[in-house]
């Protein structure tokens, strides 16, 4: 008998009385001012946010936010400040040293500042290896909480996806919060 079958047989032999699936009997958190709440919670997560006004150019905002940036990687249409198309690179290691990555978020979660990012580039390394991450997000795409997030139609349609809430951080040395552990040291969410 394979280990798999042995384990499954043991589980069946030791099985406890089946419990019915519980119904959630609570009203989860909701927010009345979505954009305001999202900007507030992004700050808690350590991220910047910018409200894109009519007539404003995303490229200018990116340039203004990261004036020192030499390499800006993006495969998004309209991001003409990009200096590299990451999809043309064979090896994701070539992304090391990227100053800014510009990517698109699918939706944001108001209760915790997460933005759902689906793999949209050839190498997912882009989301983590760049020094700064700019996420473009439609401000109408905000959900209240995780229940709504996972219940969005088509959520399961991804190969790799990540909820990102602010810059990479750690508090592993004496509980002192340090931004920039391994991933982006700075995250800016541009709400279009």
């Amino acid at each position, binding site marked *: 008998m394979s*280990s798999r079958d042995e*384990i*499954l047989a*043991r*589980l069946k*032999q*030791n*099985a*406890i009385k*089946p*419990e*019915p*699936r*519980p119904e959630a009997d*609570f*009203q*989860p*958190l909701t927010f009345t001012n979505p954009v305001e709440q999202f900007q507030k919670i992004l700050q*808690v*997560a350590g991220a910047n946010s910018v409200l894109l006004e009519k007539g404003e150019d995303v490229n200018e905002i990116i340039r203004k936010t990261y004036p020192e940036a030499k390499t800006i990687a993006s495969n998004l249409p309209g991001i003409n400040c990009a200096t590299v198309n990451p999809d043309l690179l064979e090896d*994701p290691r070539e992304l*090391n040293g990227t100053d800014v990555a510009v990517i698109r978020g699918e939706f944001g*979660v108001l*209760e*915790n*500042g*997460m933005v759902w990012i689906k793999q949209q580039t050839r190498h*997912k*390394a882009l*989301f*983590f*290896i760049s020094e700064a991450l700019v996420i473009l997000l439609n401000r109408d795409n905000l959900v209240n*909480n*995780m*229940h709504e*997030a*996972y*219940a969005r139609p088509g*959520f*399961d349609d*991804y*190969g*790799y*996806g*990540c*909820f990102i*809430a602010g810059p990479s*951080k*750690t*508090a*592993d*040395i*004496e*509980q*002192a919060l*340090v931004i920039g*552990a*391994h*991933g*982006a040291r700075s995250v800016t969410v541009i709400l279009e």
Partner: protein
Amino acid sequence: MSSHAKAAKKFIADRERTAWHDQALYFVREKRDRMAHGVPEWEALRKTASRMKKHTISNLAYYLEMFERNATANGAHVHWAKDAEEHNRIVYDIIQRHGGKHLIKSKSMLSEECGLTPYLEERGVEAVESDLGERIMQFMGTPPSHIVLPAIHVKREEVGKVFEKELHTEPGNSDPTYLTHAARKALRQNFLNADIAMTGVNFAVASSGAFVVCTNEGNADMGTSFPKVHIAIMGMEKVVPDYDALALYVRLLARSATGQPSTTYTSHYKKPVEGQEMHIVIVDNGRSDILGNPDHVNMLKCLRCGSCINTCPVYRRTGGYSYSYFIPGPIGINLGMLRSPEKYSGNVSACTLCHSCSNVCPAKIDLAEQIYKWRQQLDPLHLASSEKKFIVKGLKLVMEHPAMFYSAIKAGRLAEKMPRFVLYNSLDAWGIGRELPDFAPETFNEMWKKGEVK
């Protein structure tokens, strides 16, 4: 004296460090409280999460098979390991098949449980921990003292010292930002040079075949971004039925663990990316036995958030190394006993039965109640210490005589108001095999008399 009390004696010999450790953990506990209070439905959320776990473990084979089916359809390879040995062998086989030499790891309690790193190193595979806390512990050559905060017992100067040696940082510089960024720079090379990536699994979604890994540092995602092989290892209890169930746990995990609304990265791995192989190892290693143990089956609900450890007054004052099992605190006391009562019974005394753990556990596991049950069983197992039995008898006497009971509580309350140096000195209960619980500001009896309780 129990093994815990003996080991604790060493830890509490350094009064300042004991107080510092206590405060560091309590700070995390308070952050957790603020998060819990920010979610009005918190208690209902815990209750549903707990029931959802019960539902899942009562259909464990069903959900695991569903997960396997969907993960396989997504292109992942699913393996099953009966025990630690088989787990290590499977992992090593995969590595060998790819000629791997450099494994980059993100934090996994399961790999600790299986002793994977020494197993691989004996066979010539370097396993680098990429979580900062784990990396610090790897440099120091000692195991983590906490499941979520591996280096919580280490002072910044000690980190500075070991980084000086390993990473050639400036002598005497122990600034956390400086040290963290030094580790970032060094580990970046490890990420780029690794040929095999390994992650743990926080949740495996049966309905989809996806698995979820939560980190703040982004080390799991960096780790899996370059090598051609990703091995994910999971205990069987990590499976959740579907995304609706997952929502409950994602809401609870970071808030309970570190007092954050969420972890920075909540990564969902479903299909191997271009040119990559993805392996998932499902590990039993005693879990199916827990299922068959009605008194302790609830342990399979654990999310490994660590909040029961942070809140535990004994853990806070004695540190992770006072426990003989590799997982400390209330969760570790119970899991240790399930692993081997003969080996780990020395930890069951490390509990005041204050029930704080049961009250914070996001899965509402009856941790303290279970520890109490273990104590009852020590006698038949011939593992009870005669000294402890004597104390229990004394308690019984007090309990049976109300006046004595109330004066005992008053004395306890007084003890709490004493200056810290007294508390951490003459009454340092954990070194002498007794306990000093946290007392409520008022007794129930006092509140009742004042009419504060209706």
